[in-house]
């Protein structure tokens, strides 16, 4: 094989005008490199790549991605540093998604750095961090936690001082990127050796930054530092910071405080302090900005553990929550259900009945569909505490009123709830309360609802199993086979077709044969067509013999039907199963 071929070919392709060709050749780099062998990859391929870094962003992105997987091709972990020159350039380009990919590749390579490679990496990091352009500097910020974590002890102070400079950079994007890496950096520190004064200083400075997009990162970063250093440290140094965020001018910062309240409370520890943080949080539930209220409401479930501390606290929390059901923004009300149900396990059966159930009922009657939906989808959390009976007593009237509403869109929403309820509340409940309702909806005048219900029943059969379907469901709905209105006879057939995959062959052979047979003689052609379709579905479940003896004659008969369409579908069904 001509040794020059791969690189020459690659060079040609990479100069091609068509970007697709260039992209393909980049994606082929692994093959090319393995064909060339490690030595030639190091000496020819990589230098060539380094010279070809002026290209469209998509090509550069692909390159950054491929280089991240190049360890083996370049000779193993001790040669990974040869990839750095190219990745360094890619980490500094103007387009952010290329830079992100280069950073990702460097991060994955960093898992196996040898000492020599680490040395080169740290040199590269420093070059990026002190570059005159801001793009390489932001990339350096994203890689700081890796650099610091792996660096030898004597190199750490210098790295930290470079990072401090980045955290005070004049360009806002760099500052923000530096602060975003903070919590990852803190995550790599060990409790007894961190340069805590400096780290704390960085946190405190950036927590007061003018840019609210920088400040909002402070909440998570403070929590990370608090988790590392423990409750005493947190109370002494982080508490004023954190409490200040809940009263920040910028709604984004208050939003972060609200959404992270659980973590904030856990790092602050002492009851007294928790109460302070708590009262700030409860204020945020009534914040003028809706987004803040939504975030805070969603975080309510994190308050669970605090409920057991003090009856007074529990009372305050409960009354604050109750007023949310009247919030003017439906997004807030929508966030309430899943969050408040999370408290159920902490309140116990009595507490839940007393406090949560009324909220549930109010939300179920909300005028916004999303709010009602969010209640139903999260019922599971409350079921185990309250028990099905209790719950069903409250829910059922509401579901029934929805299912009987004049507006078909409201009825269809009830239809969609039925599988959810079935899943959450179990077979017994369904049989008693919802089976009749399902039957009723199967004869709804709107076709979409009937179709939706058919699908729901198939879903429910998936939960409850074939035996239930065969013994409970199908006998119940079978009376539709001699309904006056042909539309409902068709609905039955379509529903059966949907249920077939879950049914047992025995059942199909024995119990379904006679209703199918009688419907095949139905006066309405449409019904007979649907019979053909159902039988075609049966064929997949039955053995050849039983199918041949039971259903094939039926289809053959229908092939000679007076209606052309029936003939066609019968023929199709026979063809499907020769």
């Amino acid at each position: 094989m001509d040794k020059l071929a791969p690189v020459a070919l690659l060079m040609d392709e990479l100069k091609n005008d068509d970007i697709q060709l260039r992209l393909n050749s980049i994606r082929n780099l692994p093959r090319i490199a393995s064909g060339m062998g490690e030595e030639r990859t190091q000496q020819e391929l990589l230098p060539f790549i380094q010279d070809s870094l002026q290209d469209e962003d998509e090509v550069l992105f692909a390159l950054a991605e491929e280089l991240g997987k190049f360890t083996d091709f370049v000779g193993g972990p001790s040669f990974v540093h040869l990839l750095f020159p190219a990745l360094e350039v890619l980490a500094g380009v103007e387009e952010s998604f290329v830079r992100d990919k280069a950073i990702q590749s460097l991060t994955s390579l960093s898992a196996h750095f040898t000492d020599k490679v680490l040395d080169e990496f740290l040199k590269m990091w420093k070059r990026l961090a002190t570059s005159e352009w801001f793009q390489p500097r932001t990339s350096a910020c994203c890689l700081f936690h890796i650099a610091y974590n792996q660096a030898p002890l004597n190199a750490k102070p210098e790295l930290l001082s470079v990072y401090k400079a980045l955290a005070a950079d004049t360009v806002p994007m760099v500052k923000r990127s530096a602060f975003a890496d903070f919590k990852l950096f803190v995550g790599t520190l060990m409790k007894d050796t961190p340069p805590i004064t400096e780290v704390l200083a960085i946190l405190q400075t950036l927590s007061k930054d003018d840019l609210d997009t920088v400040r909002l990162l402070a909440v998570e970063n403070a929590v990370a530092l608090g988790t590392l250093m423990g409750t005493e440290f947190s109370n002494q140094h982080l508490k004023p910071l954190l409490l200040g965020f809940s009263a920040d001018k910028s709604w984004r910062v208050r939003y972060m405080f609200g959404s992270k309240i659980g973590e904030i409370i856990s790092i602050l520890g002492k009851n007294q302090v928790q109460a302070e943080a708590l009262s700030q949080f409860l204020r945020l539930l009534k914040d003028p900005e809706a987004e803040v209220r939504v975030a805070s409401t969603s975080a309510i479930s994190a308050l669970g553990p605090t409920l057991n501390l003090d009856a007074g606290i529990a009372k305050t929390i409960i009354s604050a929550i109750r007023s949310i059901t009247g919030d003017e923004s439906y997004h807030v009300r929508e966030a309430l259900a899943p969050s408040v149900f999370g408290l159920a396990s902490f309140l116990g059966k009595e507490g839940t009945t007393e406090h949560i159930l009324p909220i549930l009922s109010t939300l179920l009657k909300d005028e916004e569909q999303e709010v009602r939906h969010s209640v139903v989808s999260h019922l599971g959390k409350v079921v185990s505490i309250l028990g099905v009976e209790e719950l069903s007593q409250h829910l059922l009237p509401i579901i029934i009123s929805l299912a009987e509403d004049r507006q078909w869109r409201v009825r269809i929403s009830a239809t969609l709830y039925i599988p959810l309820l079935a899943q959450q509340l179990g077979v017994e409940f369904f049989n008693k309360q919802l089976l009749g309702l399902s039957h009723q909806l199967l004869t709804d005048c709107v076709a979409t609802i009937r179709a939706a219900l058919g699908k729901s029943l198939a879903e429910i059969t998936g939960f409850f199993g074939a035996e239930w379907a065969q013994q409970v469901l199908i006998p119940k709905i079978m009376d539709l086979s001699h309904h006056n209105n042909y539309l409902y006879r068709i609905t039955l057939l379509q529903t059966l077709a949907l249920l077939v995959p879950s049914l047992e062959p025995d059942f199909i052979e024995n119990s379904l044969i006679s209703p199918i047979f009688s419907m095949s003689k139905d006066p309405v052609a449409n019904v007979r067509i649907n019979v053909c379709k159902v039988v075609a579905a049966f064929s997949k479940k039955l053995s050849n013999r039983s199918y041949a003896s039971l259903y094939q004659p039926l289809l053959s008969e229908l092939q000679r039907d007076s209606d052309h369409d029936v003939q066609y579908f019968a023929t199709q069904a026979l063809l499907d199963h020769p």
Partner: protein
Amino acid sequence: IRDIVVPALGTTFPMESFNTQFEKAANKFYAESPSVWDFSQMFGEEDNENSDDDSQDATDNYISSLAFDPQGELLAVGYNSGQVVVLTQQDDWTYQLYSEFKSHDSEFDCLTSTEIEEKINMIRWYPFQSQGQFLMTTNDKTIKLFKLWNKGYVDDTPDIGVKQRRVFSGAHAYNINSISFNSDGETFISTDDLRINLWHTDVSHETFGVVDIKPDDMEELTEVITCSEFHPNDCGLFVYATSKGVVRLCDLRDSALCKGYSKTFKDTESDIGGFFQELVTTVSDVKWSPCGRFLLSRDYLTMKIWDPRMDSRALRTIKFHDHLIPSLCDLYEDDSIFDKFTCSWSGDSMRIVTGSYNGSFYVCDAFGSHITQMTAAPPSAPQRSNNILDSSHKVLHTAWHPSGDVIGLGAKDFGFLYLKQQDDSESESEEEEEESQ
């Protein structure tokens, strides 16, 4: 309470007395260094090269926007034809062609059966320096981000590449009049007659409406937004001005969507009353001072300087167009009363410039005590009589270099560059350069 640093003066003023101190300093600066400006360059083309092409409008070559880049090396000029020409500053402070490209093409809006003009309404440069230069242009409906970079040299001249990096479209039902970058380097706003949208520079498929003054019933529409701008340093603040002569300050930190405004600035003291009052009160341009402490609004007859902390009245009202008042009737009849003049601050926040009729422009100190009127024309041009109002000869567009004393002016199809006379050196030799495109 912080003291405020004024880098241009190299001093710090305490916050309470900032305005008076600054005014004193500006006055002193002005007195010591008189405002004498020399013509430096003119660019534009008189003859239409494609004169046999009937479809090309004579107004195609009209300049529609001007912008200096923040580093002070480039000047971008936008045209009615959708062309953008970028000039670069030479060592002797003259400008030469750097790059030229077609930013927007005209489109046909099928829904309304109207043509969307390719005219460049505004050009803004990205505030931070990179290896390439980034600028944003907008026409009535679409905003585009371009990158310019030096690809190498061809016969000693740099080969400048131009690449369209982003297109932000489909977000404006009405015509876009302004765009402005945020000092955070990542977001920007675009403004049409009734709405202001907030975008992220990396995301072109989504935008947030932060201001919406559309009434539920369009019959009740009385006010439209005419221009807007982000604060130069504070990433949460921006202002917008309306056709009712009102300037509003908004804070993005207050709330997430479709917010009201924090402050309203309106000053009716200089109102002339009468039939034309409503027409002359519309604000044609609003600009923050580079130091971030003052706002400049330009309406038809005056320029107003505002201190954002005081909304009861303007800090100063500069009445430099009073001589137009008797002619308002004529100006109304030839539609000149609707002309939108821009205004600009000097880099040190101490002087402002705006254009006018008869090809003239005004440079004043920031508080309007010293007003100098000049005519934009090469020295060789015949003297124009200023007694007769020539409203067809108007300097609509102005721009001031971010750090130096260079003023760019746009008057129909001609652009002018003026340099301030240096006291210590000899006056600039006048260069006339007609740059053809």
